[in-house]
């Protein structure tokens, strides 16, 4: 029964979860591993899921924590740098993004250079198109914080794109 439920969830949401993790990590192989880990964690904690959030948002939340835990485990210091500054030295873009087109490539390149909280709120609000309430639920922020951070994040993204020469004043 539980396994059946997990299977249902996997086939319904694995693409979205993988995409979310890929946007956060910029690493296809890592995103696959963390997608696997997300569903294993969901399986293990299925009994504690009381339906307060939707299954999809609950899975996003697990995926986010799994990604953060992994970053902490792998490179604790890098995690901190990533929290506050940028991934400036990382010019690698996953193939899945480069295939999309020039505008997407440029946008993603600039997105990666923002600090993590800015990336997260942009990914959830603008790419996943979640509501403010859903985003607040996943990030464990207040709705006000989501609005303010998104506003700042989009300004920072625009500045970064100007800096990279992708857009002009």
């Amino acid at each position: 029964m539980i396994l059946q439920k997990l299977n249902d969830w996997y086939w319904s949401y694995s693409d979205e979860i993988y995409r979310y993790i890929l946007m956060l990590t910029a690493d296809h192989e890592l995103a696959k591993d963390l997608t696997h880990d997300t569903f294993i964690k969901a399986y293990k904690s299925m009994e504690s899921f009381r339906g307060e959030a939707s299954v999809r948002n609950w899975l996003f939340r697990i995926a986010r924590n799994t990604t953060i835990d992994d970053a902490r485990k792998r490179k604790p210091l890098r995690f901190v740098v990533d929290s506050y500054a940028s991934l400036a030295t990382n010019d690698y873009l996953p193939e899945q993004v480069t295939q999309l087109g020039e505008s997407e490539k440029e946008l993603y390149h600039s997105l990666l250079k923002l600090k993590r909280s800015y990336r997260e709120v942009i990914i959830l609000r603008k790419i996943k198109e979640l509501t403010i309430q859903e985003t607040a639920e996943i990030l464990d922020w207040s709705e006000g914080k989501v609005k303010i951070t998104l506003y700042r994040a989009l300004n920072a993204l625009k500045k970064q794109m100007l800096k990279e020469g992708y857009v002009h004043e």
Partner: protein
Amino acid sequence: MNKHNEETKFDDAFKGFQSIDLDGEDKSMIHTKMIKSIEKAKSRKVKWNKQSVLTTVLSGILIIFAGYFLAVFVENDNQSADEKVKSPYTELEKQLSDALKTPVYIPYHKELPLKMSILMMESMIVGEKIIERKPTVAGLAYSNLDADEADAKEYEKITEPGVKGGAPIELLYGDFIKNEKHKAYIHILSREVSTRSLINYFLYGDKKTIAGHTVIYKITEDKTGNYMSFAFKYDNNTVYVFAFPLNKVPEDFAISFVEKSIKQIIR
């Protein structure tokens, strides 16, 4: 480009990302791996059950000893929850122990959570090159306040390197929060890595007894205000210095925090 066109272009590009999917092969591969992981976990449980006979016998033997352990438990039951709790910061403790080359214990306080841990770094810089870089002191900040944009800016200012990689601090845990937000702060110094003069500075002052141990009490000045500090020499190698902002924290709260912390550290 006008603002409207620009936003539309951004939104179109954002939407473009929605077409990223796992390809069929990857999707099936992850699914197979997921099912295998679950079956493996289940089979481990079954193997464990096969040993239940042996477990029952062992349980009988253990019950004989249980009375003794129960007695010890009851005896220790007067300790507060904070003193009994196992540190939830094992990973961080390991990192700090490695950095300071001495075992480190991080006190847990239910009502005042650990918000940040940093390492003060010393870098020997010649020209534009870092010749040597090592940790000198570990810091633990406890607060009921969360980090915000102002803290992030302050952190960026502090760590903005003159020479890349030469920042004076490394943040190991939590988000950076400014001194003004700390309700309690613990410096951990080690004779292996910290300067002797700094250790001696903290160990010179008035003596007090807290939790049956001698601590050195003094008022220290910082550009952000005055602090009361209590230095506890754990052993010949490690010194824990508890600092509290004088104008924000009453002395009895500080003493209680130090007492609970020492009881956890010496355990």
